[in-house]
């Protein structure tokens, strides 16, 4: 009864302060509602309608509670950069920021210069606390970014092309000269993955526990790291490609090819899900927005394009080179080119990206990888002389969820999380372009079958069209009546034949699949006795 009263007067009883708050909450509610509510008017079944309306109400209540929690319970606030007067945000450099922010954040602005060991690539674990770096000349290291301490470093004395963390900071995979290897945090080599071959890029799908790799010959391998099973072994047929990214929204692996096409793959099929032509020249870099709707690609023709992945349409084209691209958690796009990195943001929330900030390094440092650090306002650049970390206000998600990723994780929590994520491990069949289709009904495709009358009408029409053709009047005794009649008959048969053949084919099909047609033509059980009567009559 109390609940009913609440719903009856939503706005009248609230004091004015709370009313303001409820107005503010409405746009936030949308985020938590996960789509539109169902249309219950179409339902004729009253019981189902009442059950569904109760459930919809529950969704509304939970969305409201989540919006309120966001309003009141979040411990941290996001970063921001506000310029005054005629200042432009992209003219502001790291030096001028450093004098304004608090001292504890200054440790995130640093350059590590290791000149001899080649261009560096890097990877973060899901909470942003640990970073794995790999120099091309064989230098592997795992660092704790919170305490700025080195956990383990080693020299494998081979070229290392890529490095990824697996589900934890305890394990990482390095793509070495001949095969990728999996190492422990203590530097112990755990596995040598010979099947993958000479891998160019590695990616880890976190919820599926799949290690995806693309090798020199353009072969895509998916390996399940829990049991070591090779799930997918796909020959892409599109040549060597250096660009590989995972779409975090649906677990699809996207490859960028030298023809300018981007192809998207899933482990269970040999053909790509999508092949889209993005650039006239080779694709040089690619990045996915965490919400799964946006993709940024850059081509060698000096254009960066922002795509809507659901509709496969270009939203925006930005002029400029980019050898490395990355989206942050809040939607900022970093494009690294030469020794300069440009950060774009959709400042007016209109999905239009404009220049936000920039950072240029010493000339000669070639930026190979840009990566935003999760849950921090930090961008780390891996370049030919080491790596640098710069501050980009407003790029990271300020409030983390302990059950999703916890930067302050203890070892006990990490172990629990590992077990729980293994229990929630998704099977590889759940990788699809639109993951919200799981649990929904497949729509029945109704083939438009011609009724018997329609078929008969078609045949009659064809015969009518041909019936009255005038034959040539033959002379010299060749114009016999019987011969004329025979000729007319043959003409009509000739016209009828394709229609009859088509009918025969459909009948054969029906005979082969009796069950499906039965299902499609099933009447409600109460009326089935009439159906059988119809057949006999």
């Amino acid at each position, binding site marked *: 009864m109390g609940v009913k009263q609440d719903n009856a007067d939503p706005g009248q009883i609230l004091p004015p302060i709370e009313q303001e708050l409820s107005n503010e909450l409405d746009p936030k509610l949308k985020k938590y509602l996960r789509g539109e509510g169902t249309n219950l008017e179409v339902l004729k079944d009253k019981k189902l309608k009442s059950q569904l309306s109760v459930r919809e109400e529950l969704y509304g209540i939970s969305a409201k509670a*989540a919006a309120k929690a966001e309003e009141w319970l979040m411990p941290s606030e996001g*970063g*921001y950069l506000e310029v005054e007067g005629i200042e432009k945000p992209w003219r502001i450099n790291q030096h001028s920021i450093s004098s304004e922010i608090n001292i504890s954040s200054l440790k995130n602005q640093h350059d590590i210069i290791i000149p001899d060991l080649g261009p560096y690539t890097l990877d973060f674990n899901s909470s942003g606390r640990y970073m794995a770096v790999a120099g091309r000349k064989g230098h592997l290291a795992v660092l704790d970014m919170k305490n700025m301490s080195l956990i383990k470093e080693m020299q494998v004395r081979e070229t290392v092309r890529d490095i990824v963390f697996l589900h934890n900071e305890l394990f990482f995979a390095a793509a070495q000269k001949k095969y990728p290897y999996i190492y422990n945090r203590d530097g112990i080599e755990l596995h040598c993955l010979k099947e993958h071959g000479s891998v160019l890029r590695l990616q880890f799908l976190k919820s599926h526990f799949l290690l995806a790799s693309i090798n020199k010959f353009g072969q895509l391998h998916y390996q399940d790291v829990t049991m070591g099973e090779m799930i997918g072994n796909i020959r892409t047929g599109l040549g060597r490609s250096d660009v590989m990214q995972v779409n975090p929204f649906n677990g699809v692996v996207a490859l960028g090819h030298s023809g300018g096409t981007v192809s998207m793959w899933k482990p269970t099929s040999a053909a790509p899900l999508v092949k889209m032509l993005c650039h006239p020249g080779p694709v040089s870099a690619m990045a996915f927005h965490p919400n799964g709707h946006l993709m940024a690609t850059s081509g060698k023709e000096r254009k960066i394009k922002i795509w809507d992945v659901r509709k496969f349409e270009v939203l925006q084209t930005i002029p400029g080179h980019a050898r490395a691209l990355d989206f942050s958690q809040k939607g900022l796009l970093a494009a690294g080119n030469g020794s300069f990195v440009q950060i774009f943001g959709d400042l007016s929330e209109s999905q239009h990206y404009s220049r936000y900030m920039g950072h240029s390094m010493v000339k000669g440092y070639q930026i190979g990888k840009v990566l935003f650090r999760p849950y921090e306002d930090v961008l780390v650049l891996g370049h030919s002389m080491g790596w640098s970390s710069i501050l980009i206000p407003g790029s990271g998600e300020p409030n983390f969820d302990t059950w999703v990723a916890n930067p302050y994780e203890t070892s006990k929590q990490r172990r629990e999380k590992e077990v729980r994520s293994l229990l929630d491990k998704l099977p590889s069949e759940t990788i699809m372009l639109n993951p919200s289709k799981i649990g929904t009904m497949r729509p029945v495709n109704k083939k438009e079958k011609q009724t018997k009358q329609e078929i008969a009408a078609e045949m009659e029409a064809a015969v009518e069209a041909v019936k009255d053709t005038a034959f040539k009047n033959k002379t010299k005794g060749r114009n016999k009546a019987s011969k004329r009649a025979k000729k007319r008959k043959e003409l009509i048969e000739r016209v009828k034949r394709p229609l009859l053949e088509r009918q025969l084919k459909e009948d054969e099909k029906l005979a082969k699949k009796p069950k499906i047609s039965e299902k499609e033509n099933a009447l409600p059980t109460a009326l089935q006795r009439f159906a059988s009567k119809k057949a006999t009559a």
Partner: protein
Amino acid sequence: MKVKVISRSTDEFTRERSQDLQRVFRNFDPNLRPQEKAIEYVRALNAAKLEKIFARPFIGAMDGHIDAVSCMAKNPNYLKGIFSGSMDGDIRLWDMASRRTVCQFPGHQGAVRGLAASTDGRTLVSCGTDCTVRLWNVPVATIVESDDSSNCTAEPLAVYSGNNAFWDVDHQWDGELFATAGAQVDIWNHNRSQPINSFEWGTDTVISVRFNPGEPNLLATSASDRSITLYDLRVSSPARKLIMRTKTNSIAWNPMEPMNFTAANEDCNCYSYDARKLDEAKCVHKDHVSAVMDIDFSPTGREFVTGSYDRTVRIFQYNGGHSREIYHTKRMQRVFCVKFSCDASYIISGSDDTNLRLWKAKASEQLGVLLPRERKRHEYHEAVKNRYKHLPEVKRIVRHRHLPKPIYKAASLRRTMTEAEGGKKKEGKLIVLQEVLPLNHYVKEESSKKLSELWHYQLL
């Protein structure tokens, strides 16, 4: 220029002392959780599998009778006790927790056919084929002590004899009267040795009798002429008679919706009726393969348990559908009586093999006091399983029950028979005798008064 960068102080996010709990921060943003539906699906699958792993419904058997258990009665005031009567005249009071006999009530010379406890739980009424009705004092002291060593026997308060064998007895819910079923329906008072009232409609024996929980003057009986009759004590006459195609073995009223009752029939089905409108059954519950012998509703009114001649106990939902659960054991023979315990957690079945068996109502339920975290996890598992239970993989696991071979074969035989007749057997007959025989029965009206006028209370 105003600049702010995310900065977190470690003190705010970690615990102070090692005796504190770890801090938990939540952010419900859907963007942080990709692939929610897939994860929920995997969790539903795991929840279904876990449910099957922990499904151990059989708790124990209560051994003691030396002949088949024919009837049982619940004590409304004492949750742990159950009365049972057997075919050799032995009546026992059991303590379900220790599964021992607390008290024995010897006295009947023949089979005990019916047992009922009075509303205050002090008096037990029993009737049997030796044409007697006996009243017993239920010893409250021994119930409370539940002493294992002493096995007390009680003397009957009163023995009333009649002319014919009695088949069933039921006590009024809020009154002093009890009714026996035999050659006719007799209404007795505790203190009178002769029935104060007798009803008869037809010449056949009345097999079972049940008082309505909401309306204390209404009772339903079933007779061996395949009928169900409703009697009203205030007008001292039968009100409605409903004749079916096969005999009804037992009737149970829904304690939460007292206008509905469900009848356990010989033709393997249970029929739910609204007592105000006996024209057609509200629901037919089909799943047993042999005659349904007894039926009892859960105190929640949402499900009922049936025991059948085919050696199984099934739990059905009150408003239709197939049985939610089936219980069977190699050692359990023909089930003659079933009872749902008063806290809706347990089921007691009495069967031909002289044992009473205690089962859990929810097979994978964790008994005992649950920690709040455990309870939340169970609720989450239930909810996520219900959301995805229509998908084939989850459905297969949730539906799966091991059936004994004879039951499996009998059920598939029944299915092929009904399919061969082209749908529901009865609907064929329905066309011919539409006006006279709706579904399985026809209704006779004795009193002109509308049955709906007999209901005086508000239904919430």
